[in-house]
């Protein structure tokens, strides 16, 4: 991070040049338009000065042609810019399918990150260069917003549901990480640094400080500890739906409606099980609200997700096998006191 006076922010992600091209085009259009108006105003101001008291201006009644011209031209310009801007927005907000999933949890006033290996960090995020990374994010309290200016990406982090942000870093370096949504006393201190590293350095960094167990394995343990497996299994006596193959599929609900099982649906099913009951099952499941932390929820979801595409278990970068061993700490800083 250089402390000298920068006029332009660093471009360090694949979308950054796209955003900047759009931005500078707009700046150019704005500058030309503003200049045209300023020149016209100043010219008229000097040219048509009032010479004597009581003089009146030349009366004209306007021109419909002119009105149409200066409505249509700006309209065409803004609509072109809208299409371009929306294209960039879609690039910014829709993660590519091969993106590696990291987790981010915001709370007053810190950011917690989890790597696919289960490695955790606070207010720092180490990522490999050149690889698409998707952050699935949630807040434990108020609304926050994760903002990395060098990547030109930002997304609010909400309590109660997941949002995503993705980027592919293009330049090794250290970049600011900010909370952009006002969140209370230390809002301006709720930030940190993104470290973009060469993939080898990243692997070395991961190996140097291994995680407390990979997310999948921890999720599986939680699944057993909360006794989810006593109802959710494959068999005629199962009181809950079998979760294998569920994630990403279309689920039919008791009220006849259907939905796609995604992260938010799994989360909702754990916290408010009665809200969306799967067709053919009784609403028997108790709520786990207050018993499971946001971090654990993310791990459970990761596990349910792995059940979703059984057999095609993807191995995210840097995943190690050590996590398969039972790890003592499951919930990090906030292990629950009540089990399942």
């Amino acid at each position: 991070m250089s402390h000298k006076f920068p006029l332009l922010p660093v471009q360090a992600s694949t979308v950054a040049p796209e955003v900047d091209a759009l931005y500078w085009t707009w700046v150019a259009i704005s500058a030309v338009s503003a200049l045209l108006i300023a020149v016209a105003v100043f010219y008229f101001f000097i040219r048509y000065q009032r010479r004597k008291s009581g003089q009146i201006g030349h009366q004209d009644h306007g021109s419909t042609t002119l009105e149409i011209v200066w409505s249509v031209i700006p309209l065409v310009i803004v609509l072109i810019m809208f299409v371009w801007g929306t294209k960039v927005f879609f690039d910014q907000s829709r993660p590519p399918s091969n993106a590696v999933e990291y987790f981010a949890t915001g709370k007053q006033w810190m950011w917690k990150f989890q790597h696919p290996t289960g490695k955790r960090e606070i207010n720092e995020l180490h990522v490999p260069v050149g690889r698409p990374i998707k952050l699935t994010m949630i807040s434990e309290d108020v609304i926050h917003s994760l903002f990395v200016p060098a990547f030109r990406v930002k997304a609010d982090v909400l309590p109660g549901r997941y949002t995503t942000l993705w980027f592919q870093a293009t330049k090794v370096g250290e970049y600011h990480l900010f909370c952009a949504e006002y969140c209370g006393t230390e809002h301006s201190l709720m930030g940190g640094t993104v470290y973009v590293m060469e993939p080898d350095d990243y692997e070395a960094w991961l190996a140097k400080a291994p995680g407390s167990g990979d997310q999948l394995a921890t999720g599986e343990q939680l699944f057993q500890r909360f006794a989810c497996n006593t109802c959710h299994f494959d068999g005629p006596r199962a009181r809950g739906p079998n979760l294998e193959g569920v994630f990403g599929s279309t689920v039919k609900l008791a009220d006849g409606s259907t939905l796609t099982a995604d992260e938010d649906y799994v989360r909702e099913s754990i916290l408010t099980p009665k809200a969306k009951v799967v067709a053919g099952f009784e609403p028997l499941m108790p709520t786990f609200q207050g018993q499971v932390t946001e971090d654990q929820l993310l791990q459970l979801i990761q596990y349910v997700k792995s059940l979703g595409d059984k057999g095609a278990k993807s191995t995210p970068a840097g995943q190690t096998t050590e996590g398969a061993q039972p790890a003592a700490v499951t919930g990090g800083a906030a292990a629950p006191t009540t089990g399942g």
Partner: protein
Amino acid sequence: MSVHIEPKRNYFLVFGALLILTALTTWVAYFDFGAWNNVVAMGIAVVKASLVVLIFMHVRHSTPLTKLVVVGALLWLVFMVVLTMNDYATRGLLGVLGK
């Protein structure tokens, strides 16, 4: 000045219609039309409200301005509901989380 005096009979007719519609809306609620239950219930409510607005509130004989005010208020309500529900109905689409 022109004050339009509505015949008494009209008021009682509207009153009767409103009572019948109230009974109707409660009665049809016992049948299962799926999502159409909501449509029927709201449809009956709109008819009832229109009767009140047009006859009891004299909009039928009011100036165009008053009619415009009524329509305008409803239009703005539609703006608010449609553009907000446009968000809720499309969350989670286009490959972005958010249900």
